[in-house]
């Protein structure tokens, strides 16, 4: 397996918002050699860690997508305008490139459908099912040493804006 970093982020005290973290933890249990980080938000210093990996997968909860959604991150570095303490996956990738002139050759964002991000640790059944599907799909992709673009599932694949 090509060395990869999986980053699950979200807030486990906000219901389904913790889906990315739970999915990352399940992947860590399933693939012991996989590098897995979990965090509430993407912080600037993550850029330094990213530069050491060829592949990175971001796992996040999303109220926007009703289905598990896979997006490739990359292409030309974007000129985003980060204004706060937390950055998007695309911004972290850009920050990595801007600071170190390199970044993971392949990056993917997996958005796990969230339904209820209210206060509390409970997750909806629908999101739990999506987490299971996410873990299956990402494990399959990572165990396949082909390019992300060649192995992505066929369901909604929109390049991340």
């Amino acid at each position, binding site marked *: 397996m090509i060395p990869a970093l999986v980053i699950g982020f979200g807030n486990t005290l906000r219901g389904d918002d913790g889906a990315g973290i739970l999915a990352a933890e399940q992947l860590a249990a399933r693939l012991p050699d996989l590098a897995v980080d979990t965090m509430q938000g993407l912080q600037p210093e993550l850029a330094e860690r990213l530069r050491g990996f060829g592949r990175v997968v971001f796992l996040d909860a999303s109220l926007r997508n009703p289905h598990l959604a896979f997006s490739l991150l990359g292409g030309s570095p974007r000129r985003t305008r980060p204004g706060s303490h937390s950055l998007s996956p695309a911004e972290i990738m850009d*920050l990595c490139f801007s600071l170190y002139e390199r970044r993971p050759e392949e990056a993917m964002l997996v958005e796990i459908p969230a339904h209820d991000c209210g206060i509390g640790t409970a997750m909806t059944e629908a999101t739990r099912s999506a987490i299971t599907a996410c873990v299956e799909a990402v494990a399959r992709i990572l165990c396949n040493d082909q390019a992300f673009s060649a192995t992505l599932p066929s369901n909604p694949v929109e390049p991340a804006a």
Partner: protein
Amino acid sequence: MSKTVTIAPVTRIEGHAKITIHLDDKGTVTDARFHVNEFRGFEKFCEGRLMWEMAGITSRICGICPTSHLITSAKAGDDILAVAIPPTAEKLRRLITLAQWIQSHALSFFHLSSPDFLLGFDSDPATRNIFGLIAKDKEFARRGIRLRKFGQEIIEVLGSRRIHTPWAVAGGVREPFEVSKRDYLLAWIPEARETALLALKTLKSIHENFSTDIPNYGNFRSLFVGLVAPDGALEYYDGTIRIMDGGGNIIADKIDPHSYSDQFGEATEDWSYLKFPYYKPLGHPQGMYRVGPLARVNICDYIDTPLAEEERQIFKAMAGQAEAVNNSFYYHYARLIELLFAVEKAEALLNDPEILNPHVRSKAMINRLMGIGVSEAPRGTLFHQYWVDENGVLQKVNLIIATAQNNLAMNRTVRQLAMRYIDGNKITDGILNRIEAGIRCFDPCLSCSTHAAGQMPLHVQLFDADHRLLDEIRR
């Protein structure tokens, strides 16, 4: 026709807020307000939880300063248990508090404020951010990220995770320290000290460039409030409350933090969810006070690390006859002095052999039905007060957040800047950025009372007295 200018959201701060500027018929500023328009209600939903859980729960208040809530909550727990924690536990808690200062202050300076300083208030807003900073000075930006990472590394090494570690508990901390971890952190110190000094040198070099702007940045007399050590030294974890007026006179000292509610009241306004704390003896709003770096460096008698003390003396010399630095722009300077102090002090703690003592927790049952914890968060004095039943179940919670204590001063700063720069006919992006920068001096962490959801573009709207949209600008 009178108008209202709205800046929403305010950018490069933590959380959601907007600024409204009210103009009269002639386009002259009559008022300006800093609104915090999100509500979270942590105090309420903590009721019914066990006191033991509070350190872990309240650290979720914020993704930026969780460690400050963790430590302050654990201290409130100590108070309920009525225990003295082991000396090593206090040193470890002090170390993680310093780490919180390092990562937060580094972020504030390098990421949020440096773009204004190094690129200019009037520079292109599309590049007036961390990427613009990288384009101008990549090594400077890298160093900033590394310094913040050092703070995060301390937190992660001690607490096993960078954010929301449950490491501190009522009675002490969960895990003792290890030699290998200590040595790993000590290896960071030379680079961290060098970067902190570079930040100070950079900031001082730009003061002259902004000599026409600085006098308008929240330049007014107010009270300053913070903790000091028993001998008057800069304090960050414990101590007693000192209150200084804008003339540098200590008007109250050695106040037991347990009596904070006798000293400070909280006013409310119907246009903001952020409360307006004030010093009770002077009433509202005359009892306006400032907390955080500017206050702490003003009120302390000295700093017990050599490089930071040297800078403090230079800082205090700026006060002149007032003997207190009253200009909010110098929050940045004070913040970097504290950053340097935090690196120096962390080194001293790491070199203290006692920090490796395995006895790090005192255990007890519920011995008091009310407890108060206090510490100095990066942005100012933080209070947690809990009322519990005999089983430790929370009956009531009161949190006094540092940012809220600066609310009156932030509003005054916005008003001062608006009156200086806006004449109704000339509202440029640079002027609006200056007004936002006035808020950034305080480095408000609105996540402590709101839930941050990333960055948004600046949106300015002009309304007439009937709330009809006359004009708008988007970044």
